[in-house]
């Protein structure tokens, strides 16, 4: 990788009480790359994204965005950095006191001060790109299905055309066809907007489609990272077990037989 990485993490640690979730994460993401983070359920993938966004304060380590250290930023500096991010939350996290289109237009109106009418038009365009007709814009989030909420969350994350976008399980809960539409949309974000993305997914099909690079999180560390093309010859039994979805292997799930 040449030049300054868009995102660079080194020695990042976070524990909740005695539980060490992130235990020294080192990784960097080049501008325009699309990193997919894979790993078992509960290994700390969502915590990793939230820590980069400053929603969770790390115990140790450094986070650099375009070379700028963000762990020591004050509130205004944080806001300035966050304006460059977009995030799709795993649970969508739509504002239930607003309508769907107001959710999508939120960053445009509050963050960028765009006028309501213009923001609405933009919001409806974004909704259309995730396959939602404009009638849906007038509904409240409580009236949507799980997959529709996910797509509205996605539309909201990309509405402000951010430089860096995080997708936490963008295709979970969607049918295979809609999953493919969303995969294409994420690829388009990287291509057309020149965005740098970090996505979390359990769906290897989707990972192969959207990733330029893959990182596997296990035991609080990145145990393997490389270009997507190398994933089938990673040489890591952990990665092999994960991508083939086998219960037997070095990763032991805590279940009672």
């Amino acid at each position: 990788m040449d030049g300054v990485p868009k995102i660079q993490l080194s020695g990042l640690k976070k524990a909740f009480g005695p539980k060490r979730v992130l235990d020294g994460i080192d990784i960097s993401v080049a501008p325009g790359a699309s990193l997919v983070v894979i790993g078992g359920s509960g290994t700390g993938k969502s915590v990793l994204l939230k820590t980069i966004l400053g929603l969770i304060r790390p115990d140790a380590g450094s986070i650099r965005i375009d070379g700028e250290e963000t762990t020591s930023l004050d509130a205004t500096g944080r806001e300035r950095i966050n304006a460059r991010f977009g995030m799709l939350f795993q649970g969508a996290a739509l504002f239930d006191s607003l309508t769907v289109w107001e959710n999508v237009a939120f960053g445009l109106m509050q963050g960028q001060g765009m006028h309501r009418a213009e923001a609405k038009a933009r919001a409806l365009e974004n909704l259309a790109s995730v396959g939602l007709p404009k009638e849906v814009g007038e509904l409240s989030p409580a009236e949507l299905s799980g997959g529709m909420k996910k797509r509205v969350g996605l539309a909201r994350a990309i509405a402000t055309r951010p430089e860096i976008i995080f997708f936490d399980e963008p295709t979970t809960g969607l049918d295979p066809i809609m999953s493919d539409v969303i995969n294409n949309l994420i690829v388009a974000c990287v291509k057309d907007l020149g965005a740098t993305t970090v996505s979390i997914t359990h769906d290897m099909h989707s990972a192969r489609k959207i990733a330029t690079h893959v990182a596997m999180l296990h035991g609080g560390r990145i145990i393997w990272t490389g270009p997507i093309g190398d994933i089938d010859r990673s040489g890591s039994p952990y990665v092999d077990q994960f991508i083939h979805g086998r219960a037997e292997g070095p990763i032991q799930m805590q279940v009672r037989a």
Partner: protein
Amino acid sequence: MNPLATIGRVFIGFLAGLGRIALFAANTVSHCVRPPFYPSLIARQMMDIGFFSLPVVGLTALFTGMVLALQSYTGFARFQAEGAVATVVVLSMTRELGPVIAGLMVAGRIGASMAAEIGTMRVTEQIDALVTLSTNPYKYLVVPRVLAAVAMLPILVLVADVIGVLGGYLVAVYKLNFNMSSYLRQTVDFLEWMDVISGLVKAAVFGFLIAMLGCFHGYSSGGGAQGVGRATTNSVVSASIMILVVDYMLTELFFATR
């Protein structure tokens, strides 16, 4: 288990909680004076806190005024001082019961709903989402509620004062057979501006406490539906206690100045 260590831990936990609340309050105040401001959100909260609380506050104030007249009459009749009923009703209402009754009612109605709403936003990551959309949750969620409560509580209390005095008047005139005009004269004769103003100042302070504690408990809630339930209860209990404690302190303050 060492009992002394347990007491120590509880005490330290209590102090830490107070510190967190103080920090939250300081943060809120500092965000009140820095842009961006959200006038439309403040207006919506004012409507909710002021207008929609009128029925509850009015009803409780009415019956409080009525029972005040009845009780003070029972007492004063024993030493032929019935003439003091009107004065007692109006002074108790404006100085004390108006602000406290309205405060407790609003704590139950508004403090609880603030804690539940903000708590739900916390546990469903909506507050995190606000941050990622470059919106400061203090400014967007907390400040409008606190400002609206500080502005609306005095108005509610003024209404409660009037309705409470009216309640006392109705009981005195129609049940205890007082003379209408002399009751009204006795009501205003001994009333001073300071009586009303001290009550309104109390109301504004209670408004701040209710909204701030409601937001604080919601904001720091965790642990799903159960956590939100706990935040709601805590907001009402802590606001009610604070209202009574601060009421005494403010009364002492006003008492000392005159």
